[in-house]
């Protein structure tokens, strides 16, 4: 723990201390990333090979997590499912914050009409219930996973814009901004060179939190049959497909469910940790 006494500030970077929970969170995320990129070589079996003759069986030495109704290896399907669990949320978080950063910087720094227009749009978007809009749009438009990702990008942009704007408003009255203005440095440079680096830590911390929300939302949509194509190994989809075999092979349900929960909790922990470290 570091203390700020009078004006004496601790010099250099604060000592990195990490609790066991944090280490575990990073391990979980690392495993998900590895599975997403190297799933094919890690998985003991193809996720699509059907064994209708054996049907759903509980875990055994051959199938560590058992099989589903069509006799597909659950463990392999979960490992392959890491791809959609990673790529969609990453696109949502990065996309939403890229747009939000531009809008937030403009809104917070320029103020006036620009601010009013952007913020009224944000207010409107915030009035919409995110999961409901996603269900309706994906349901009506179709297009599955990537439509869902696109809808979430738009929906997530609104709250993110608010976060960026408030961080910008905090920097705006600082004398170093005044000094830059007095020197005649252009607005664009002030925004990009002076303000952005100072609000970036907050943005990064929230990007990670956005990832967790996007993961849960996408899994939810897949569970409702609005995400990935039927048959795709996806954690939300696995929950939907295997809900009927809860009593014959519970692991087929618990493993994808646990993966969603563990990954989301880990990302939340990492987000909080980043936030505390980067914004003090």
């Amino acid at each position: 723990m570091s203390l700020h006494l009078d004006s004496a500030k601790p010099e250099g970077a604060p000592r990195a201390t990490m609790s066991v929970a944090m280490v575990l969170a990073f391990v979980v995320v690392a495993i998900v990333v590895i599975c997403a990129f190297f799933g094919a070589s890690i998985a003991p079996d193809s996720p699509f090979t059907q064994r209708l003759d054996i049907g759903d069986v509980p875990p055994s030495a051959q199938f560590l997590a058992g099989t589903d109704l069509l006799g597909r290896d659950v463990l392999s399907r979960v490992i392959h499912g890491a791809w959609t669990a990673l790529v969609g949320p990453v696109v949502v978080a990065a996309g939403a914050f890229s747009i939000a950063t531009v809008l937030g910087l403009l809104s917070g720094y320029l103020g006036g009409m620009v601010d009013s227009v952007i913020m009224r749009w944000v207010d409107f978007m915030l009035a919409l219930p995110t999961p409901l809009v996603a269900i309706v749009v994906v349901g009506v438009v179709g297009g599955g996973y990537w439509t869902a990702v696109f809808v979430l990008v738009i929906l997530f942009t609104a709250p993110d814009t608010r976060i960026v704007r408030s961080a910008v408003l905090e920097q705006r009255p600082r004398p170093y901004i005044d000094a830059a203005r007095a020197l005649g440095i252009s607005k664009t440079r002030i925004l990009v060179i002076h303000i952005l680096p100072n609000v970036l830590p907050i943005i990064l911390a929230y990007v990670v939190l956005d990832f967790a929300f996007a993961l849960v939302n996408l899994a939810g949509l897949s569970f409702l049959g609005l995400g990935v194509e039927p048959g795709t190994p996806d954690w939300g989809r696995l929950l939907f497909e295997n809900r009927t075999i809860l009593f014959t092979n519970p692991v087929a349900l618990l493993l994808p469910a646990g993966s969603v929960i563990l990954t989301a909790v880990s990302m939340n922990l990492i987000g909080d940790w980043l936030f505390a470290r980067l914004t003090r």
Partner: protein
Amino acid sequence: MMAAPLLTVRNLAISAGGRAITTGTNLDIARGETIAIVGESGSGKSLTAKAIGRLLPPGVSARGSIVYNGIELMTLPKREMRQMRGRRLSLMLQDPFTMLNPLMKSGLHVAEMLRDRSEFRDRAALKAEVARRLGEVGITDADVAERMPFQLSGGMSQRVAMAAALARDPELLIADEPSTALDVTTQAEIIKLLKRVQQARGMSLVLITHNLRLAFSTCDRIYVLYAGSLLEVGSARAVEEDPFHPYTLGLLLSEPPADKRVPKLIAIRGKVPRADEVAGRCVFADRCDWAEDECRAATPALAETSAGRFTACIRRRQIAAEMRALRGAALEAESALASLEPSISPIVRAANVVKNFAGRRGRVVQALKGVSIEVRPGESVGLVGESGSGKTTLGRTLVGLETPTSGGIEIAGIDASNFAVMNAADRAETRRTIQMVFQDPYSTLNPRHSVRTSLREAIRTSGRFSDQQVDARIAELLREVGLPESYAERRPASLSGGERQRVAIARSLSVNPKVLVCDEPVSALDVSVQAQILNLFKRLQQELGLSYLFITHDLAVVRQVAERIYVLYLGEIVEQGPAEEVIGRPQHPYTKRLIDSIPR
């Protein structure tokens, strides 16, 4: 000379996470006595006060003994300690704006302290008592007790806080910088009031301050604290007349004198260290002109030299004569007359500048009500006023950070009233002519940029230097403000307040301006560093032929740097003229009050 002391502190050592903040402080306070603990930032003075009240923040711990009237406070159970606070010893803290609960009426702060006394069970009696208590601190308007803290001025808030701190009739009041956050004229009133209450009640008072002059004028005895160690203890008069420790002398000399203008202030070199950086030797040795090897060999103990006088300087006998000579020379130095050259046409001219801000509920707040000032080439002009006078608004308007509601501004012959409608060439030219230095050294630099990045950007924007010249120019700028070239790679976080202000000055000089608007550039700095920066301003003016508009509330500072003074009061210039004349023979009642409030 001393009766049984009311409070005895022995070997009070405060530390945070293994890092020493103070080392073995000894204090004695007699009944009815006023002592001052004088120190700069990081000296540990505020934490010492909190340690006495056992109110240290979490993570900070204290060892030693604090005996109050025969009771050892350090080992007292928490419950009993709570009983002591307020009743026996009371604390008054620095910031009047955060000290009061924003959701409690001001009278309630006092009533809260009286509630557990049986004679005030009755509501009318309580109300009368609250009114009486507020009366004691000079609040006679009965209405004030009903107001919320945000409706009170800083001085009023501080009075309410004082009434609350005194409500349980403590025998000892510890006041931590009670006047620092207030305007100069209010400062003097609060200190006078504190002193009057202390005398009327025969109460003991510990005044914690960074202002040596204030300590001398208010207190019986002085404790000089530096980097966690007491360096000198003695009666106020004795210390003022003949300081024994080089640090005390340095503090006295580096304070800009209010009664005359000196060609150069005598500054203490270097910066204020942290206690753990200077452990195991004389804490002041690195900044002391008389330091020898023996000073760095071990931490000198505070030794009694005569009755009631202590100094931690082991070389006192050898250097006493030299120190006295230095002091004598400083006291006798002739007041250097500022030269005035009224014939040259002004480089900055503001005529009838009015600036309105939109206040709450559409009300218009007039920050400037038709202000006209002039600054001539090579001239240094002081703009004096307190918070709310509009002095900062005027400065910002001149450099184009605000646009005046009406009135004209001319910078080097270019009409610069509205930066938005100027053509690009004129705007660039104006910005190369006039630059600004800001008050707060801690936020004036972008925390994510190294010194080099900050300076390079400023140099490039000016368009006067080619890319090959930029690095040479950065080195030149750092040299001009007295920083080593290696500082270019540093980030603001690793710089001290004084060093940051030097970088900020270098940044504003990067475009080769002719005029600098300096908004309270030294008010946030430690006394021993203030003098360095003021000297820097003086040197830069001579070397570069700069003009200054020096915005400040501190008349002593303005006297050292300015040849002419404008006094701004509630958005209007109430007095102007040569510095000597305005300070020596003030005409306007407000100026008189400003000058009277300088502690002497």
